[in-house]
């Protein structure tokens, strides 16, 4: 990769990181509601996993979804507006933090049910395969999702039909307050996945280079019609599970250990190692992103919720099928 590409990767990671910082601010100010899960610390996983995708490829993942959307090219203004619950949000304010989606760029969400998106990834892969399209599906989920039945059903189907899927397990080692050894009989997610007959690898998810190289192989394999690949990305979330979790179940030392592996400084150092790069160059990227995000917040501040009269829209394609009966409160 040349310097320009690396700077682009750095920008994506920084964008994902800085966006979450703004989100936390706005959440604390009460402008964002509901459950809100930040991706802070895991940026290298998503940036690396999505690095080799083309626009026609499908992406989906869990509720910790701001980063996927932004990295795929989503508009930070629409993202922030969604969090504010406004009609110009990426889901008109109906989805919120957990349910970002942008059909136009083939990002199909943001799901709140642990593991629930895995079979949907199977279906997208099936459609691509049967319609003779060369699309690849990347599906993100957490370590906790591997204990959910439907996840296993989905992994089995993926291999059985040799679908073009890249399964990316973000093993951040916790499902809310429960650590992997306290919830999974087998701690290695890739060993668990080997039961489904596909290449399965564990990589350092705090390292963009490792992530992008393993995903390069996986995406190529999928695109070549050779079936799914499983990637276990060992990573860490610096914050609590969601905005309301103080994360007291983790020791300072543990957090510090992973802070030392922060993907952003590592990326900066790597770029500096391979190329000439001045502080100013990084600062410029960061400033540009900062402006974008300020604009996003300003945009969100200007927006409005959908009027209540439009509550029944978007339920059915033929709106008449929705039935605001006399029983409804609205």
């Amino acid at each position, binding site marked *: 990769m040349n310097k320009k590409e690396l700077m682009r990767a750095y920008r994506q990671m920084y964008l994902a990181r800085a966006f979450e910082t703004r989100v936390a601010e706005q959440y604390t100010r009460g402008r964002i509601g509901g459950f809100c899960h930040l991706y802070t610390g895991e940026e290298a996983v998503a940036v690396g996993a999505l690095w080799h995708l083309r626009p026609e490829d499908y992406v989906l993942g869990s509720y910790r979804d701001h980063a996927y959307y932004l990295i795929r090219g989503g508009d930070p203004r629409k993202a922030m507006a969604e969090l504010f619950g406004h009609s110009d949000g990426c889901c*008109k304010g109906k989805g919120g933090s957990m*349910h970002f989606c942008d059909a136009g760029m083939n990002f199909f969400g943001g799901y709140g049910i642990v593991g629930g998106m895995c079979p949907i990834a199977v279906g997208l892969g099936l459609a691509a395969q049967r319609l003779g399209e060369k699309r690849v599906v990347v599906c993100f989920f957490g370590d906790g999702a591997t204990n959910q039945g439907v996840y296993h059903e989905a992994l089995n189907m993926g291999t059985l039909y040799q679908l073009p899927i890249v399964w990316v397990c973000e093993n951040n080692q916790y499902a809310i307050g429960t650590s992997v050894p306290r919830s999974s009989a087998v701690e290695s997610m890739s060993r668990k996945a080997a039961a489904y007959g596909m290449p399965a690898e564990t990589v350092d998810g705090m390292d963009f280079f490792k992530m992008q190289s393993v995903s390069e192989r996986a995406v190529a394999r999928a695109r070549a019609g050779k079936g799914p690949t499983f990637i276990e990305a060992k990573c860490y979330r610096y914050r609590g599970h969601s905005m309301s979790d103080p994360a007291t179940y983790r020791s300072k030392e543990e957090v510090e250990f992973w802070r030392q592996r922060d993907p952003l400084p590592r990326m900066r150092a790597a770029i500096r190692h391979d190329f000439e790069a001045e502080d100013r160059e990084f600062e410029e990227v960061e400033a540009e992103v900062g402006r974008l995000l300020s604009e996003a917040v300003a945009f969100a501040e200007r927006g409005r919720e959908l009027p209540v009269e439009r509550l029944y829209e978007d*339920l059915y394609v033929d709106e008449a*099928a929705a039935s605001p009966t006399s029983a409804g409160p609205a």
Partner: protein
Amino acid sequence: MPKVTYREAINQALAEEMRRDARVVVFGEDVAEYEGSFKVTRGLLKEFGPERVFDTPISEAAIVGAAIGAAIGGMRPVPELMTVNFAYVAMDQIVNHLAVMRYMFGGQVRLPVTIRMPGGGGHQLGSQHSHSAEPLFTHVAGLKVVYPATPADAKALLKAAIRDDNPVIFLEHEGLYNSSGEVAEGLEAGRIGEAQVLREGSDVTLVAYGAMTHVALEAADALASEGLRAEVIDLRTLRPWDQGRVADSVARTHRAVVVEEAPPVCGIGAEVAATITERVFDRLDGPILRVSGADVPLPYARQLEQACIPHAPDVVRAVKRLMQGAW
């Protein structure tokens, strides 16, 4: 008109829609090589090949999830769940994904998924295989729910379901598969949401759906022999349902009995009774009564099971209670 069975009618609808639109795919447990555990998908693998008709593992949740994804990806999946009883393991995918996704993503996806599920009681299959799960699905906003009673409706409504851009739960009654009826050549897609008056009458309205439609008709016959003229309405579609047609009828007859195979609590009968009472309260001569399945899991023993399922005499009794003001 040619007579075909309910099973054949469904099979025809599948085949015709698959011919019409290459994006229609059929999958599920044993639907391809085995041709369906009720043989509804007979011949489809042969005609359309394994790309469009394929077997799955016993993974109902993933079957429904795969249908969702395939629909987003541009197909029109028509998965079969071997029976409705197994829909419970897929309930999260149905209720929490399929039904809500279009809404929560602000209208960005279309979900032309038709899930076929045989169900109902009467074959001594016991407590885990005899469910009438229609109240559970009908409760859920975002789904459409269809339950045909005749071969013609089965064919026309399945075509409509497959062409519908929304998720449709398509319920088939196992006890009706061998029943036959006239199905016009070249029958086109029907309309989801329209009830049908199968028999006109002025003394009482019998509202039914699925297998119970035939019970209602039988009851109407019995009532006729006693001089009582019952109007029989087959709902055909449970969500959305044809409130207007039912209300009009009850406004004329002043009395109604809903016949449902499912147990009563929070059921279809309750919904029909509550809604219609609200709409035509002043025209009612008595409460809308329900004749429902027994409020127990279905037992295996033959007579016990039969005692759980409404029969014509149960309906006749309810109508008489109503006529006599003895509810």
